[in-house]
């Protein structure tokens, strides 16, 4: 059985296996100011902190959600980040998904799903690669043998939102 006990120390350095390299290569956001902020500068669309959307969010570009979304998010073939202020009650589908905020729903990543240390997830994750950072809260199941997770066909090269409920002010960082 197990012969050794390895203690987690707060000041412990991550092993080389966990060394951050690139945003979606690593689950560790400790060495950068905010990975979702970094995402903003990559010309991703942003759903700002004060925006609330009920319904389906789909599109053909990467997206950062810092606000509240209820329904579903489908960004097949693109990256999705739920920022630290993001509060999502929805099923999510994207190429790479990074969770820094709160998600209640199932998450499908055709490449990778990362739950950061500030992330809170209640739902099931399906992706070939999944990373859970120390400190992340997760309840549900993880399937890392999903076969081929096929992205759905992407319509236009534009993020489309279909609000059904309240929609707050438009975030000026968007686009």
């Amino acid at each position, binding site marked *: 059985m197990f012969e050794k006990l390895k*203690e987690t120390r707060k000041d412990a350095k991550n092993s080389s296996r*966990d060394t951050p390299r690139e945003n979606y290569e690593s689950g560790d956001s400790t060495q950068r100011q905010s990975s979702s902020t970094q995402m903003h500068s990559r010309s991703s669309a942003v759903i700002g902190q004060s925006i609330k959307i009920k319904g389906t969010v789909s599109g053909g570009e990467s997206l950062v959600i810092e606000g509240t979304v209820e329904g579903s998010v489908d960004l097949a073939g693109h990256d999705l980040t739920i920022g630290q202020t993001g509060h999502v009650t929805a099923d999510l589908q994207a190429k790479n998904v990074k969770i820094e905020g709160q998600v209640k729903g199932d998450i499908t990543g055709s490449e990778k799903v990362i739950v950061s240390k500030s992330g809170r997830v209640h739902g099931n994750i399906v992706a070939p690669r999944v990373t859970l950072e120390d400190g992340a809260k*997760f309840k*549900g199941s*993880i399937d*890392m043998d999903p076969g081929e997770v096929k992205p759905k066909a992407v319509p236009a090269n534009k993020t489309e939102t279909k609000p059904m409920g309240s929609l707050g002010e438009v975030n000026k960082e968007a686009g």
Partner: protein
Amino acid sequence: MLADYEPGSRVTVLDLGPGCASTVRYFSDFACHLVFYDILECEHLIHPDEDADYVSTIKHCQQHMTLPSDLQIDVLLLWDYLHFLDVKSIEALSIVLQPHVHQQTKAYGFGSLHSDKPMYRRRYGVHSTQELQLYESTDQPLPYAHSQQRLTDAFMCLRITRGTLLQEGHLELLFEAP
């Protein structure tokens, strides 16, 4: 126990604790299905109705511990969670897990050499085939300290095939299908 599984092979794991980074990291080398079912959130097991009879305890457990019906567990990570449960709740848990156990199911957990040796709260993850990751260690005694014999009698869906004596009168237990 985990050395039996080759990296890349298909393995289904049920962990009775919350999601754990090192366990996910370890099993990411496998084509795995990991289920984290935090049993401490299962109020009917942790704080059972003392007046409830055996049948209603099982019924409550079946209603509230909803595992996927087709879940067939290869590796069950019990850790020290059985020591949060009284004997009646362990029996109920065993009955709920029974349909999800198969001939090759193995489980790993801790026990007490004697019931008067308290178990202390520890939170573990899998680091490697030989090494555990200790996340949390407190001096807070667990509600129960079940001996190997008591666990054998109560957790009937699996049988204890190996017990290794650890420090402080604790046991490392390996369970297999009967």
